[in-house]
C-alpha cells in the first residue's frame, strides 16, 4: 500500500464514522420503536446533578444505542451472524427448527410460589365471601412445552407439567384446567404463533372446549365459527428478539361468529368491535384481538339472556379466548389487574358474578405479577 491508497482508505473509514454520527445527530427521533414494541430512551435531562453523578452520560449512551440509524437492520445483522456462528439463541430466544422460535424457560421459584399463594389467599376469601362464584384457573404453557422436538440440541427446557399439576392440590378453592393435557393431542396444528409468545385462537379454541365442562356451557363446534385468515405477516416478540429475518411471518386466523359482538370500555364508556382491523397494518398484530391491552372492559351479548356473568382476570393470553367465551354469557367482564385501581373485592361483591376465570401465560406467572391487588 502506498500513501495515496492509504489516504483513500483512511478517508473512507473516517467517512463511515462521520456518516453514522451525522445521520444519528440529525435524523428525527422516534419515541416508540414498533419492531421491538417498546419505548426508546428519551434525551436525558441535563443538569449539574445528572452530569456529576454520571446519570446523564449513562442515559445518553443508551439514547445513542436506541436511536442509532437503521436500528432494525443492525439487530438483524447481529441475529443473523449469531445464527451463522451456530449459536442456539439470540437475546434469550432459541432458533428452533421448522421455523419455530422459542423463549428459554427458567423457573423463578419465588415468583411462581408467591403467585400461587396469592391465588390461594384469594380463594379462601372468595370461598367465604362469594359462595355463589365459581373460581377457575387456566395457565397457558409456553410453546416450547408442546413443540419441544423443534428446540435446538440439548436446549434446557424444564418441564412445566409438574408445575401445572401441582396447582390443583395447592389451590383447593380453584377449579384448575390442565391446559397442557388439553392442548397436547392437537399439537400438530398451529396452537401457537411461531414468532410470538402468544397462543393462537385455535389453541384457545381447544381450551374453550375443555372449559365448557367446568364452566358448564355447551361449546360450539369448530365449524360453527368462521375461521378467517386475517393476516399472513405477523412477526411477534420472539421475532424481534431473535432478529433472524429468514424466519417467516405467522398467519393470524380469527374465529368469527355470526353474532359479531362489541365490547364496552367500562372506563370511557366507548364501545368497539372485538376484532379491530387497524392493528393488522401495524407491527403488533396480536392487538387485533380485543384491541391491544384492555384494562377494564365488558362484552355484552344481547343474544344470551341467561343472566350469566363471567369475570376474567387476565393477561394478554385471554384476548383470543374471551371472544369465544362471550358467546355463552350475557356479560363477560375482562380485568387486567395491572391497570385496575379500584377495590377488586368491592367490585366482585357489588356485581353478581357467577364464574371467575383467572388466565395467564406461564411466562407471566413466572414473573412478579403483583397479585396483591387480588386481596384488595
Amino acid at each position, binding site marked *: 500500500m502506498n*500513501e495515496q491508497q492509504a489516504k483513500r482508505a483512511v478517508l473512507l473509514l473516517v467517512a463511515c464514522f462521520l456518516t453514522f454520527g451525522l445521520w444519528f445527530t440529525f435524523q428525527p427521533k422516534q419515541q416508540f420503536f414498533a419492531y421491538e414494541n417498546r419505548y426508546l430512551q428519551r434525551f436525558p435531562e441535563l443538569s449539574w446533578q445528572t452530569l456529576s453523578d454520571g446519570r446523564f452520560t449513562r442515559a445518553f449512551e443508551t439514547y445513542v444505542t436506541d436511536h442509532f440509524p437503521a436500528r432494525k437492520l443492525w439487530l438483524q445483522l447481529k441475529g443473523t451472524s449469531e445464527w451463522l456462528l451456530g449459536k442456539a439463541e439470540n437475546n434469550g430466544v432459541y432458533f428452533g427448527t421448522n421455523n419455530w422460535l422459542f423463549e428459554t424457560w427458567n423457573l423463578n421459584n419465588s415468583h411462581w410460589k408467591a403467585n400461587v399463594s396469592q391465588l390461594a389467599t384469594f380463594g379462601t376469601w372468595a370461598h367465604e365471601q362469594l359462595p355463589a362464584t365459581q373460581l377457575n384457573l387456566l395457565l397457558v404453557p409456553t410453546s416450547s412445552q408442546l413443540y419441544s422436538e423443534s428446540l435446538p440440541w440439548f436446549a434446557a427446557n424444564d418441564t412445566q407439567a409438574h408445575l401445572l399439576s401441582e396447582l390443583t392440590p395447592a389451590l383447593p378453592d380453584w377449579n384448575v384446567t390442565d391446559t397442557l393435557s388439553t392442548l397436547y393431542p392437537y399439537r400438530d396444528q398451529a396452537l401457537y404463533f411461531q414468532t410470538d409468545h402468544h397462543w393462537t385462537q385455535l389453541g384457545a379454541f381447544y381450551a374453550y372446549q375443555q372449559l365448557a365442562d367446568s364452566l358448564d356451557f355447551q361449546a360450539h363446534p369448530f365449524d360453527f365459527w368462521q375461521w378467517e385468515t386475517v393476516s399472513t405477516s405477523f412477526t411477534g416478540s420472539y421475532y424481534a428478539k431473535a432478529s433472524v429475518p429468514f424466519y417467516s411471518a405467522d398467519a393470524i386466523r380469527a374465529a368469527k361468529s355470526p353474532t359479531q359482538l362489541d365490547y364496552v370500555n367500562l372506563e370511557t364508556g366507548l364501545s368497539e368491535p372485538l376484532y379491530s382491523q387497524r392493528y393488522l397494518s401495524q407491527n403488533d398484530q396480536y392487538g387485533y384481538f380485543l384491541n391491544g391491552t384492555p384494562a377494564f372492559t365488558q362484552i355484552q351479548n344481547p343474544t344470551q339472556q341467561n343472566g350469566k356473568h363471567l369475570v376474567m382476570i387476565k393477561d394478554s393470553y385471554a384476548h383470543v379466548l374471551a371472544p369465544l367465551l362471550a358467546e355463552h354469557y350475557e356479560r363477560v367482564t375482562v380485568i387486567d389487574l395491572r391497570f385496575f385501581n379500584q377495590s377488586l373485592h368491592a367490585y366482585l361483591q357489588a356485581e353478581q358474578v357467577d364464574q371467575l376465570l383467572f388466565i395467564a401465560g406461564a411466562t407471566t406467572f413466572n414473573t412478579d405479577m403483583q397479585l396483591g391487588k387480588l386481596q384488595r
Partner: protein
Amino acid sequence: MVFSSLTFLYLFLPLVLVTYFLFPARYRNFLLLLASLAFYAWGEPRYLFLMLFSTIFDFFIAQLVYRYRQQRLAKRFFVGLSLAVNLGLLGFFKYAGFLSGTLNDVFHLDLAITQLALPIGISFYTFQTLSYTLDVARGQIQPQRSFLKLATYITLFPQLIAGPIVRYADIEDQLSQRTSSWLRSYSGLQRFIIGLGKKVLLANQVGLLWQEVQLLPSSEMSFFTAWLGIIAFGLQIYFDFSGYSDMAIGLGRIFGFDFLENFNFPYISQSISEFWRRWHISLGTWFREYVYIPLGGNRVGRWQEIRNLAIVWFLTGFWHGANWNFILWGLYFGVIIIIEKHFLSQWLQRRSRWLRHLYTLILLAFGWVLFSFEDLSQVWTYSSWLLNPFATTLINQHSLFYLFHFGPLLLVSAILATPLRQKIPMTLPLLIIILLLVTAYLVDASFNPFLYFRF
C-alpha cells in the same frame, strides 16, 4: 467513556479526529488534552480533579527532584514525597476498604472506613506518573518544562484508563514532535478496528458463556462445563485486555505516538515464565524497572533473589485488586516462576513441546479461577470441580448445549489467540466488515463489561 461504545465510535472519535487534523501541529497537544479530559470526565466526572491534581503535583515535584539532583538528602525527600502522595492516593482510593477490613479482622478493631468507588484508570496513571518522577530522579530524563506536554502525556485518552502503561521516556520526543502520514493513520485505524473486533466480537461473546457457567447452581455443574467455563474466561480476559491495548496502540499511532506492545500471543507460551513475558508486558516491565532491579534483581544471592521475586509478585497481584484472591494469584505465579527458574525449566526442556503447552495452560486455568472469584471458598469449590471429574458429574445436558452453542466461537477464538491470526490479511474490506459487525453487536448490546477497568 469506553472505546467499545457507539458514542465513542460515531460521535467522539470522528469529532476528535477531524478537529485534530484540521488544526496546525502547534495546537494539537492542547486539543488532545481537551479531548482526554472530556473522555475521562464522561465516565468519571467526580475524579477528574483527582487526576488533574496528580498531574500538577508530579509536574512540580519532578522539577524539584531535578533541581536538587546534586543534593542527596533533598532529592530523596522529594522522591519520597512523590512516592508517598502518588501511592497514598492509590492506596486510599483502591485499598482503604480492604486494609481496614483486614486490620479489623486481625486485631479485632472497628475501623469504619468505607471503600470509595475506584477512580477509573488510577492504577494505570499512577504508575505512569511514578515512572516519570523516578526516571527524572535516576537522571535518565529531564523534567518536562511544559505543563501542557506533561498533562497531555498523563491524560492521553487512548491509554488513560486501561493501559498499556506508557513510560514517559518512551514518548518524550513525540510530545514535542510527531510525524503523521496517511500510512501511519491507516495502520493506526487498522490496529484500532482489530482491537475493537477482539473486544466486541470475541471477548464479550465468550464472556457470555463464562457468565452462564458462573450462574449455574452446583447441582447442575459438571466437570466438562467447569473446564469450558474457565477456558471461556481465559479467552475473554485475553481478548478483552489485549483488544483494549490494540485500540490504545492504534489510536496512539493515528495521533503520532508509538506505544510499546503489551501482548505477544501469551497463550502459546511453553512455561509460566514465558507467559509473563508475553502478557501485560508494560506492567511486567514497570515492576522490573522500578521494583525488581532496584532491589538487586538476580545479581544478589539466591535467597535474596527469591525474596525479590516474592515482593514483585505480591505487588503484581495486589495491583490487580484489593483482595486476597488477587494477592494469592500474584504469589501463585511467583511461586511457579521461582520453581521453574530453579528446578523445573531443565526438566521441561527435555519434554515435548505439547506437554509444555499443556502444563502452561493447565496452570493458567487454575490461575484464572483464583483471579475471577473474590470469595476464596468459591475458588476452592471451582478448583475441585476442575480437578475431580467425580466431584460433580462428568458431563451433562448443559455441557453438551454449551459445546454446541459456543463450540464454534470458542474454536475461532482459540485459533485467533495464536500467531495464525497474523496470516489473515487485514484488508480494507475485512476491516469494514469487522466494523459493521461490531456496530451490530453494540446496537444490540446488553453485555459489554471491561474487565480491566477494575484495576
